[in-house]
């Protein structure tokens, strides 16, 4: 699709717009990327990979928590 604008941002938009429209194998790849990113950031991060220290140490007392872990052995 050729549009008539010649400004820089218009040309940048045009590059991406036409690029995505004319993709062939890229469509499959984007689908795979979207599924993968969803699994990583939504499923894995939220349900399986919590921030351990944030869950176990009150905010601001992380140093005390880690010190207790490391020094009371």
């Amino acid at each position: 699709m050729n549009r008539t604008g010649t400004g820089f941002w218009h040309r940048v938009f045009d590059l991406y717009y036409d690029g995505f429209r004319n993709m062939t194998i890229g469509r499959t790849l984007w689908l795979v990327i979207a599924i993968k990113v969803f699994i990583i950031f939504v499923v894995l991060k939220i349900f399986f990979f919590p921030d351990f220290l944030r869950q176990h140490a009150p905010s601001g007392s992380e140093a005390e928590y880690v010190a207790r872990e490391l020094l009371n052995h």
Partner: protein
Amino acid sequence: MTLLSIDPAAIDWARAQFALTAIYHWLFVPLTLGLGIIMSIMETKYYRTGSPFWRSTAQYWQRLFGINFAMGVATGIILEFEFGTNWSNYSYLVGDIFGAPLAIEGIVAFFMESTFVAVMFFGWEKVSKGFHLASTWLTTLGATISAWWILVANSWMQHPVGQQFNPDTMRNEMTSFLDVALSPVAVDKFIHTVLSAWVLGAVFVVGVSSWYLLRKRHMEFATKSLRVGAVFGLISSALIMLSGHHSAYTVAQTQPMKLAAMEALYKGGTDQPLTLIAGINPFQQPDYEAADEPPLKLAVPYALSFLATNDVNGYVPGIRDILDGYTKPDGTVEPSLDEKIERGQRAITTLAEYRKAKAEGADDSIINCQLSIINSNIQYFGYGYVKDRAQVVPYIPVCFYAFRIMVGGGCLFVLLFLIALWKPALLRGRWMGVAAIFCIPISYIVSEAGWLVAEFGRQPWTIQDMLPTWVGVSQVGSSAVMVTFLLFLILFTALLAVEISIMLRAIKKGPNT
């Protein structure tokens, strides 16, 4: 909850999960780096000649690059999740240092790669030839710079420099960004790793080209691609031999136990030979305390001394020397393990007393005295958690065999490149052609073997001498980590199957002629 209540199985599962993720992530990185240079060379040929042949050749390799690039996107992020969940003590202790290169990598990857990748794929008809060529090279450069920062972070774990421990915050704080970014280990690791990625990229191009030659399809494309891949691979292989020597030298200086494990060198000395092969049981840690060397050892005289010290008569410490303590050629004494353990325990005990004294508002003179004891022993902090000698010796069979797979594979690829350059007709024959194609999966095994040497050789440390794995790990249950490990195994296998399937389809389709 203290370290005594950590489930040992959780440590193993957390390590296995990290290894699985890193190995999977590394399937994509080397081809991005290696094929990136080759496709840029192809496009440079198009830029200089204006030939449509080179344009379609460059576009073809860029398509394969794009598939690999897309499939690798975000796989490294999972490693950072694992740091926060499974390795929280580690993350807290060194996050200030480790986080900086990772953050820079994220920014570089996002802005540089995502911008120029778009121009490279979408811009053939939109921008000038020169600008497009620059974008292709900058895509490759961006990926290489990203790799630099990741390798800086990894190198810091192998050889921590440029930091100071703050007993009040319980964190290691960066004192010199340049020391971290340009440490000798980081420089060596970057050069060696990137060169190995270039070799893998070259093997990939030679292997794929051989498939077309076997099929008698796209013969001009295959012949010329084969030649570019082989020349590039041969140059990379020559450079990697030099960088390999220098890496061995650096490892000998900074992680002598890793070198001793790679070589199964139980008792060291001067004039040390380099072991070609020996009879080491792959499933059992050898008895390095009793034996002087492994059975059935076949070695090249003086070669290990030369690799490790640049002197054929140089002194190389073995595992027992490192455990018992030894005197270096410059006269400095490396303490025994027992002494390191004692000093590490002193650092830990004094740190606990210091924090208690501070909390109770003790006298400055007491606090300063404790600080002095902490600072003079902090370099052995991690040894304070070691209970016996076996804990600080890496698993020798993996280090030993992975090193030989890496070097042996490198030699095999040199042979492949030589044949591709001087006897390319051989690759049109069935067996040699198939062998060239099989070199593609072998190159991945070889590349991963290099990482096994680096990471198994670092064990038991998450950070060399500073933090053993059983201290860096979180108080997580082994079943939780096991579940996510199995989840990853299924996810990664499925994604890999999809990638290989898309890649094979693109290869079968061939270039647009």
